[in-house]
């Protein structure tokens, strides 16, 4: 039990009359890399967005590092920085340089002084291979560079878990690789990650566990081998056949 960093219990979410997720249970262990796959509109993005409270769950609980973040009494501003989030559309702050994008939140929260944050930012930029872009504005970056900068921004808060919502879907095929390389590096470093993805071969390669979400629930869960090679679930087989073509 001590290894569980995030515990999800009976999570339900609907938009109006449309139920997207129903009674989802999940335990995420420290260091684990989980990929979530499933057909468009199945609710996999909604699920990771719920984990960061970007969507408010209708019911259920999310216990993160011993704190129930769905409890209205919890000061989420304290907890959320520890949950990193990487968006499909990067969402960099366009009025700040790449370096300021990274340092703004840690300095604002008082976690680091400005010089410390600057030093950390340069380390992170070096790590994602963007040292020379530190003083550029996001509008001058390519999609892949933006996403690497966004990952660096999340890492600056020293998160205990990284959530990624289709991190490569908005990228041109030839630059997907540079972002996947960074995510792979992150996985190798032992970061706990939940990645929503359409890239089956990457999910197969990088994950410890793969979840298949469909019809409001986690329909299949297992090692990449179990999910991709030996599933007996008909819907999953159909889905895989369709995306592998």
């Amino acid at each position: 039990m001590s290894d569980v960093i995030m515990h999800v219990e009976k999570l339900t979410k609907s938009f109006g009359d449309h139920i997207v997720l129903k009674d989802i249970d999940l335990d995420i262990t420290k260091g684990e890399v989980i990929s979530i796959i499933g057909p468009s509109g199945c609710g996999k993005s909604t699920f990771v967005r719920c984990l960061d409270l970007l969507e408010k769950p209708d019911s259920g609980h999310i216990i993160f590092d011993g704190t129930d973040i769905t409890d209205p009494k919890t000061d989420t501003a304290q907890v959320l920085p520890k949950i990193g989030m990487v968006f499909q559309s990067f969402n960099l702050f366009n009025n700040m340089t790449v370096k300021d994008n990274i340092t703004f939140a840690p300095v604002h929260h008082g976690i680091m002084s400005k010089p410390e944050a600057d030093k950390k930012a340069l380390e992170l930029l070096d790590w994602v291979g963007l040292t020379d872009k530190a003083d550029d504005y996001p509008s001058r970056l390519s999609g892949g560079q933006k996403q690497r900068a966004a990952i660096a921004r999340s890492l600056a808060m020293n998160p205990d878990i990284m959530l990624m919502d289709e991190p490569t879907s908005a990228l041109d095929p030839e630059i997907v690789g540079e972002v996947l390389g960074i995510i792979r590096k992150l996985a190798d470093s032992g970061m706990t990650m939940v990645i929503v993805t359409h890239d089956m071969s990457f999910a197969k390669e990088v994950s410890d566990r793969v979840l298949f979400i469909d019809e409001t629930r986690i329909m299949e869960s297992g090692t990449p081998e179990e999910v991709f090679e030996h599933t007996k679930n008909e819907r999953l087989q159909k889905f895989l056949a369709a995306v592998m073509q």
Partner: protein
Amino acid sequence: MKKKNKIFRQTVLLVLLSVFVLSVFTACGSKGHAVTDKASLTGARVGVQIGTTGDTDVSALKHGTKVQRFDKGADAINTLKQGKLDAVVIDGEVAKAFVKQNPDLKILEEPFETEEYAGVIAKDNTELLDKVNKAMQELQDEGILDKLKDTYINEKGDYHYKEKVTSGDTLVMASSIDFPPYEYFDNGSSTPVGFDVEMAYAIADKLGMKLEIQNIQFDAIINAVNSGKADIGFSGFTVTEERKKSINFTSNYMETQQAIIVQKGGAGNGQSFGDKLYNSFIKDHRFNYLLSGLVNTIIITIFAVLIGVVLGFLIALVRVTHDKNGNLKVLNFIAKLYLTIVRGTPMMIQLLIIYFVIFASVDISKVLVAIIAFGLNSAAYQAENFRSGIMAVDAGQFEAGHALGLKYGTVMTSIILPQAVKNVLPAIANEFISLLKETSISGYIGLQDLTQGGMIIRSITYEAMIPLLAVAVIYLVIVLILTWLVGKLEKALRKNER
């Protein structure tokens, strides 16, 4: 460089086009019904000044008489000269002044009707009425009124009354300063002169009060007096039973006639273009009316824009915050109500309401009233500018801020607003340009702005084209300069982003 040429060419084209259209219209007046005496007014096209007795009584003529009602006598005279009217019925002394300036017009021997002039005082202010009547009686007994009549009406003698009391309590007089020889501007100054004006100074001195004259449209004077904006109105008011219902009249000070003015027939205007230019601007330094008006227009515009930007920004913040997270319900309701009212009613009505209703009993500068009215109006439009600017910053940055544990206010002030302000700067600058033009209705509260400056020149020279075109050109030049600056601003902003 190419663009500059284009703007220049467009301007020249525009000016030429407007001159052409104006001259076509001026030339196109058709001859109608010949008016030779009072009886032949029936069925003719007759111009009158709104709210005068001529207006009431000519409008009562039946049998297809077409009455055109003008705010200013000078407009009616102009229209007559263009051949679009057959006759103008107007106060006898005013008619004499007009005809003196326009040799191609004449007054018919038979007057339209006889009437009496008196001042107006609010119904509930009988104390002032008694005092004024007593003062007028004394002035009559001392022969001062007769001497003024000689100077202004009979044009013999050069008696002028000099005011004595220049401090202490103020007697505010409302008057429509476009009615020579009773009240008008002369010698290029912005100090009104005329029979009513000097009589009012004499009365104020008798009361031991200092006189302040407010230039207000004729048909708004009774309102101004009733609402307390002015204590008394002297503006060639004819005593009528209808008016007695809403206002008290002082003693009569003048018996006069409504005269009928017609064209002599055939005679041209007689003034060359150069004469017109000279009369409109150079003579008596009349260009000063435009200059002082322009100063007011610019002051009003600049301060109104400031109010609009600050208030509009706050309203936009309330609206966006409510839309994003449901807070500030009450403020949002107020803001929405405000936007609905301001954007759903004409600017002119708002200006009139603010001056004659909201600030009715407050002694406040008209420029300040205009600044407040235009500022409040502009705020509604600026609010929507700011709001669309904030909405244009993609919601993803809010989410990224949230994910980093940043509070709504922090994300708003440090991330969203700096981008939004940059987005809306051009729109805000454009609102500045439209506001500049909108202030041209300031004349409705008797404020002398640029447009009103042109109107005053027109009321002196009875020549509409030159002052109106001049006013239009001044607005156009300012707008073109501002447009050019906005263009530069936009370019600079775009450069900044790369």
